[in-house]
């Protein structure tokens, strides 16, 4: 049995290390480590609840929006605030565009290089690539032999310069790369197009939020922006037109480039990768995108749970069933590290017991800065696959149609979704669903405005004098990477306790007291590993979860101003 460390894991958000045990070119066991800690939840207590979203938002600069939403929702829950319908729609627009943007970046810039061999693209025939593009990306204008010839030359020149930049050191020529050169060139051309596309599309966030990353127009009670058709600034008629244009061109790219590209990849790699990387088989979605004010029942992507990979039964979600343990994490619990604690009663004392850096291997019992969240004590996977599986099983309709269309096209079955490739497919299908839905939400905003409804904030509880002496709140949302919850306790008009349970803490958790592996630790078992120095197969499964480590590591202290002891050694 050999043990190999892969650190840094790149093309993810944040700092992550993976150690795998392998023999005969196959992974037998895996340990996932979050290697960075900032302590955001130690910084939140004692502050004004209305500023919490600004701080919480900094949990992640990639999915830069979702923590702000979860935070204001937690406060609104605690204070009993109902936001105006327009604020709900604007938040859906911000969330939905965040998903579309983030999923496109994930596929092309964080994941594609696990499947696409850059050097192979250099031997592609540009004319044949143009023919492939015409068959795959129907109606996409950037398609001619000359265009693909130019891209090929540009990449060739880049690699020949002796300064291969981002592509340097890639695992090119690895036997796991099996796409034909033309497919590689096509996807590489779209990698470059997507770089430009994402910058343009996310101007939606600049219009609605002032900037991206870290849009800034949130407020407890609604949004700090204005809706007024004739006003000189804010969301006026000109802004609505601009939003419509950006969302329309965004949808065009998703329909004609992203979805067919993922289909091409899935059809090619399905024999191996629709079987591997299955994960725990339990899936959790808080659901999101409320379409009226009646609660989870109105969510475009529904709330629910699936267990044992069964696509015929959706179970309810009760946030009281969520608890975290630190049995294998670098923290201490007063009642014993194996205890499962609900986030609202959570506790954290960082207690690093790993090896002193520099180290070669982490073999200590505790091995991560991530805690281990469990639902009724069980390991759950969250993310696009969980959301789509729940939606597929729960409702049918548009989701079922989109999933079936994609699967048929790629020659896959619904049960194939529970795999490495299934996660990639689910993410693309979700992108398509949301890209279309965004335009519908924009239309309802425009209609409300046309009818004279310009309210976008409920200011009734802005003044802390109106708040109860103590209050508890839960703010739930779906982040691109999965279910995200913030729990807050307010006392004396300040934050007394604050806790985040984030998607990657679910998916990338270490083992718990019972030794149950986290979701991707589990998914990595039986992954082939032709060359441990070039672990491209491991990266495929890991990246299919879209890890996001910075926000996964968090720490919380329930007592306002309590001091925290950090012991090392």
């Amino acid at each position, binding site marked *: 049995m050999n043990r190999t460390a892969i650190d840094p894991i790149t093309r993810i958000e944040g700092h992550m290390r993976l150690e795998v045990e392998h023999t005969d070119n196959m992974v037998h066991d895996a340990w996932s480590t979050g290697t960075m800690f900032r302590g955001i939840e130690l910084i939140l207590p004692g502050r004004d609840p209305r500023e919490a979203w600004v701080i919480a938002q900094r949990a*992640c*600069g990639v999915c830069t929006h979702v923590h702000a939403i979860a935070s204001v929702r937690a406060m609104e829950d605690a204070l009993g605030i109902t936001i105006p319908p327009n604020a709900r729609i604007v938040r859906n627009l911000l969330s939905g565009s965040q998903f579309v943007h983030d999923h496109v970046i994930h596929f092309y810039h964080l994941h594609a290089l696990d499947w696409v061999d850059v050097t192979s693209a250099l031997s592609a025939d540009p004319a044949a690539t143009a023919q492939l593009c015409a068959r795959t990306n129907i109606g996409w204008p950037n398609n001619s032999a000359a265009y693909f010839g130019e891209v090929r030359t540009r990449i060739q020149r880049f690699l020949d310069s002796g300064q291969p930049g981002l592509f340097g050191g*890639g695992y090119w020529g690895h036997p796991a790369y099996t796409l034909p050169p033309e497919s590689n060139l096509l996807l590489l051309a779209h990698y470059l197009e997507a*770089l430009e596309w994402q910058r343009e599309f996310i101007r939606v966030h*600049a219009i609605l939020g002032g900037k991206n990353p870290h849009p800034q127009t949130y407020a407890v009670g609604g949004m700090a922006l204005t809706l007024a058709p004739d006003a000189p600034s804010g969301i006026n008629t000109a802004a609505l037109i601009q939003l419509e244009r950006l969302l329309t061109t965004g949808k065009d790219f998703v329909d004609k480039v992203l979805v067919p590209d993922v289909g091409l990849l899935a059809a090619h790699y399905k024999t191996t990768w629709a079987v591997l990387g299955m994960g725990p088989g339990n899936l959790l979605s808080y659901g999101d995108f409320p379409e009226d004010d009646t609660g989870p029942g109105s969510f475009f992507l529904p709330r629910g749970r699936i267990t044992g990979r069964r696509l015929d039964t959706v179970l309810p979600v009760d946030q009281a069933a969520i608890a975290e343990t630190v049995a294998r994490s670098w923290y201490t619990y007063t009642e014993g590290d194996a205890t499962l604690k609900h986030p609202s009663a959570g506790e954290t004392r960082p207690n690093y017991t790993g090896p002193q850096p520099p180290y070669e291997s982490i073999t200590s019992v505790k091995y991560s800065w991530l805690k281990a969240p469990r639902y009724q004590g069980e390991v759950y996977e969250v993310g696009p696959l969980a959301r789509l599986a729940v939606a597929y099983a729960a409702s049918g309709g548009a989701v079922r149609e989109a999933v079936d269309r994609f699967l048929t096209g790629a020659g896959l079955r619904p049960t194939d979704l529970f795999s490495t490739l299934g996660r990639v497919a689910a993410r693309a299908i979700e992108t398509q669903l949301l890209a279309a839905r965004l335009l519908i939400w924009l239309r309802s905003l425009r209609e409300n405005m046309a009818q004279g409804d310009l*309210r976008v904030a409920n200011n009734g509880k802005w003044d802390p004098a109106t708040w109860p002496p103590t209050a508890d709140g839960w703010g739930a949302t779906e982040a691109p990477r999965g279910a995200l919850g913030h729990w807050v306790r307010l006392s004396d008009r300040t934050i007394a306790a604050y806790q985040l349970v984030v998607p990657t803490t679910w998916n990338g958790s270490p083992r718990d007291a019972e030794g149950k592996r986290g979701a991707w630790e589990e998914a990595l078992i039986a992954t082939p590993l032709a060359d441990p120095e070039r*672990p491209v197969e491991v990266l495929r499964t890991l990246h299919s979860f879209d890890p996001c480590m910075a926000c996964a590591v968090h720490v919380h202290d329930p007592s306002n101003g309590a001091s925290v002891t950090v012991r090392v050694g």
Partner: protein
Amino acid sequence: MARNGTTRTHDTARSQACTDGRSIAALLAQDGIGRRSFLRWCGYIAGMLALPVEPFGARIADALTTTPRLPVLWLNGQDCNGNIEGFLRAANPTPSELVLDRLSIDYVELLMAPSGKAAEARMADTIARYSRRYVLVVEGSVPTAANGAFCCVGGKAFTQILREAAADALAVVGVGSCAFDGGLPAAEGGVTGAIGVREFLAGSGKTIITLPGCPMNVDNLTATIVHYLTFAKWPELDDLGRPEFAYGGCLHRSCERRQHYQAGRFVLSWGDAGHQQGWCLLKMGCQGPGTPANCATVRFNSGTSWPVAAGAPCLGCTRPRFWDNLSNAFPTTASPLALHVVSGDTGGAR
């Protein structure tokens, strides 16, 4: 929990860059989407740097087309990836031009192809081959407590990685507020001993440039690098390492709501009539007065907007220790003007 920001002296010449920026923003907006002219962009950068477009636009173009691509190592410490994401929003050169044609980004965990040892080898290779010729960009704060255990990459403490990578760097550029002064992890309540790059590398004799902001504006990073490529020297810096062209002027002076400020027309609650008419956000906690930044002129996301334009108050994220003064931005009963004085920031007059 207010901690005082460092008070800066006002200098009219410095704020010039801000005012000039207006036409630049217009230029950029005009450029819009679609095909962008490289020369036009060079003129834009010249403007940002407060240089006359003639002859500097052409000189910048020359420097960019004839220089071998500048090797860049981009390190992430205690961060959220907001700055590297911000980098990807570059208007011009576009992200693909930056990555393929203008720079050689040899190490950046968010985007590079290899992981593990192969990734580490890329960094070592650049340090060896391009000694004193690569730029080290640092995003995030440096955790100095617990022997570095709060941030490790490849089994090494980030403190060690940064020290080693900085030793042979041409210059170090700290992007974002965390790299500036420790930022969020260093805010009250933090336990990781987080500090900024200037403090961490103090005494190293390195040129250390800081681009605070949460995250930084990518245009300021490109302009800084272009300045070096064109003139073989770094732009003029203030005593905290911030380039004067970007941080020498006060945001409040170039704000589009300033006429309302001067006329005493203030927004008093979210979505009120004044808010809809684009009035001044001071009484909603705007930290613009006293905030050294060019957001109002350069704006974000291809010049599309900036927080105040969208309707939200400025949080003062380019100021030292802004996280511990954040509550000023959420006033209720106290006059925000008084709050500015309480926080020791005399910039209200600027």
